[in-house]
């Protein structure tokens, strides 16, 4: 999908950053899973190992932020921002409503771990919303 004269490079950098951080996330999660029990004692080493996947998530968030900053094409940037707004609304809705259900009923707990994946799913639905309302999904 064309993005203007410099858009292809922006898109390539975005996917490199995103998939780089994503790969790091998978490796760090695998390592933490192998090295730590679910009830590992609170020590500097254990916390450091458990934080590694979190750092990789920060890398993915940074990649998304850089995309919004680097897109020069204002229409494509608007599409991406609309996707992020849709994803944020969906995440807030799911987490808030589920949280209230947790408070008053015996539904299973939704671990905070799922907040970022839910938001990422929301980006996909945001792209669909863009496609249905404007005819273009976005550029990433």
């Amino acid at each position, binding site marked *: 999908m064309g993005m203007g004269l410099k858009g292809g490079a922006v898109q390539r950098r975005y996917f490199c950053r995103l998939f780089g951080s994503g790969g790091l996330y998978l490796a760090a999660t695998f390592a933490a899973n192998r090295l730590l029990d679910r009830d590992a004692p609170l020590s500097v080493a254990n916390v450091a190992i458990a934080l590694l996947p979190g750092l990789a998530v920060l890398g993915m968030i940074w990649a998304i932020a850089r995309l919004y900053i680097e897109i020069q094409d*204002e229409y494509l940037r608007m599409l991406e921002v609309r996707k992020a707004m849709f994803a944020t609304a969906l995440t807030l809705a799911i987490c808030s409503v589920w949280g209230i259900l947790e408070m008053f009923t015996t539904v299973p707990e939704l671990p905070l771990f799922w907040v970022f994946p839910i938001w990422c799913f929301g980006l996909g639905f945001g792209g669909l919303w863009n496609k249905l309302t404007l*005819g273009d999904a976005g550029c990433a």
Partner: protein
Amino acid sequence: MKNRLRVLRAERGWSQQDLATRLEVSRQSVNAVETGKYDPSLPLAFRIAALFGMAIEDIFLWEESQ
């Protein structure tokens, strides 16, 4: 907001991609502006006007009902 972009582009025999390249934007942007799905920012409107050698208000048409 209505505009005359499609007519002006056709008069010059440019495709949407030709115009996009000249404006340094994506083809999707040109299509979105032409079809009225997206109103360009003031800087982009000025670039479009400069490219066609016209005033902004000769390309983009404001209607009171908007």
